[in-house]
């Protein structure tokens, strides 16, 4: 785990240098940034959007956006946190669009049964994520996987760090409860299987 360098690359200098080169007009230097972060950003989008196809599109859109807005990046925050900020807002926008599309169909009082329900290769962890909201899933990734501080997550998401702390506490409780339920569920499953 990269303590003290949340969400960061193995070599921060390499990234700083690439940013500098892009600013100086070397477009190709942006490839270094893409290759360093694309997996992380894809993972984040995948868990927020719960769709592989949408995450694939999102990761590409996000890097194009990041390239276009690179001039706005200020070194007050880490580059990775800024990248996550762009990703967070992009995914939020995607989720709103999705809502709008399904609202159109809700005219017919129907619920879209899209492939969002059928995620391939579902693991127990996927099931844990399934019961969380997009916001909770995003928080879990930023806090537990990327180990950002609440202050940094506050910068990424625009929520206050106090509110984030509360949300995170609730999320912990929810996960523990889920774990307890899961234990019950497993026992039930085993009985069913042995029959």
């Amino acid at each position, binding site marked *: 785990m990269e303590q003290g360098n949340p969400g960061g690359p193995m070599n921060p200098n390499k990234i700083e240098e690439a940013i500098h080169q892009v600013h100086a007009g070397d*477009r*190709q230097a*942006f*490839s270094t940034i*893409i*290759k360093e972060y*694309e*997996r992380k950003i*894809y*993972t984040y989008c*995948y*868990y927020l959007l719960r769709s*592989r*196809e*949408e995450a*694939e*599109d999102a*990761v*590409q*859109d996000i*890097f*194009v956006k990041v*390239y*276009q807005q690179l001039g706005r990046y200020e070194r007050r925050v880490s580059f990775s946190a800024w990248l996550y900020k762009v990703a967070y807002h992009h995914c939020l*926008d*995607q989720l709103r*669009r999705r809502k*709008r*599309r399904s*609202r*159109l*169909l809700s*005219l*017919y*009082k*129907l*619920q*879209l*049964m899209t492939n969002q*329900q059928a*995620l391939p290769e*579902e*693991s*127990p*962890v*996927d*099931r*844990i994520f*399934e019961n969380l909201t997009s916001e909770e899933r995003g928080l*879990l*990734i930023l*806090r*537990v*996987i990327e*180990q950002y501080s609440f202050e940094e997550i506050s910068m990424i998401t625009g929520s206050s760090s106090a509110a984030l702390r509360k949300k995170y506490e609730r999320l*912990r409780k929810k*996960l*523990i409860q889920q*774990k307890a339920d899961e234990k019950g*569920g497993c026992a039930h499953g085993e009985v069913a299987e042995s029959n």
Partner: protein
Amino acid sequence: MEKWQNQTEKQMLERIRSSVGRVELPVDSYNEQIMNRIEHLETRGGNKLLKKTLAAASIAVVIGLGTITAGFISPAWADTLSQIPVFSSIFKHTENPGLKLAAEQGLTTSPNMSVTKDGVTLSVTEVFYDGIQLAIGFERTGVADERVLAEITDFKTHEFDQSTKGLLGLPEVTLATGEPIGFGSSITGDVKGQPNTLLLELRELHNASALGDEFKVNIRVPVAQIAEPFEFEVTAKKLAEGIINLTPGQGASKDSFHYKVKSLDITPAAMRMIITSEGEVPASPEQTGEYGPTAVFYELVDDAGNVAASKQGYALMKAVQHPIVDSLYNTFPQTPKTITVRPYTMTLDNDLKLLLDDNGKPVRTYHKDLESTIVIP
């Protein structure tokens, strides 16, 4: 990071970490795609010649009083327009696999019509019609905002948020007579991965046989902060080949429930089945008490075992009996010899939540005695 209280939490977080850490990109890298897009954007933004061509195209269109038909664009113009990168295929990026397939096989038409008003250009780039669905692809230029469709504030009146200039309201599609086109469901929305595009799909068209193999439609698209809607007259041409229309009339019964396949239409892009039914929705022994069945869904299976799922939505009510179900399906890889209709229900609990299996998927109850096999001539 605070210390975790107990071992279970620690283990769970470790499990999450290791599982999330194992997520891999579906491809080696998106570097090439992203860099190509960036290059394309920069070329587009910086190429003066291209901008000039676009402006000239717009002038030609404005002369047509805001409405343009295919006749206004000479083959030379059409050729020029098709070379401009904005007119790329929208359908190829849609979530509708049939439409994607149709675009890839060149079964769509490209009217390439543009209307410019007040700095905003809207183009109809693609049209597809197969007697089941009418899909129209739009592309917009001249607006910095990435969003294309405005927030629709009232779906009945089609009122929309006018605060950002250049965002579109819901397109209105009418026949040449002025009558609106009847449809079962519609989807309007931005196309992901294709900025500045909008896709309109009218599905399960009503009375499609009366429309004929070729008909003109008028499309009016309201745009925020632009007084007059953008108008287009487009010719929809029905796909000439690969369409099978059947009226099998066969079905099956169980207890009081009875259904009949009224029609089955197969095109290269979609299948549409209309089922009529009567009687009570069949319930399995598990679907009693707290639980109850949903409405009946009809899955299609071909002779090779491929399954086409219904795109029918479900109402949050137990045992809803729909006398007519008009539903679209994705096509099979090849035209099948037979198609078996496999009716099933899902299970709702008292909170009207779907009963899920261990994998988190809705539990389906199939009724073998209600299956019916249709022979495709």
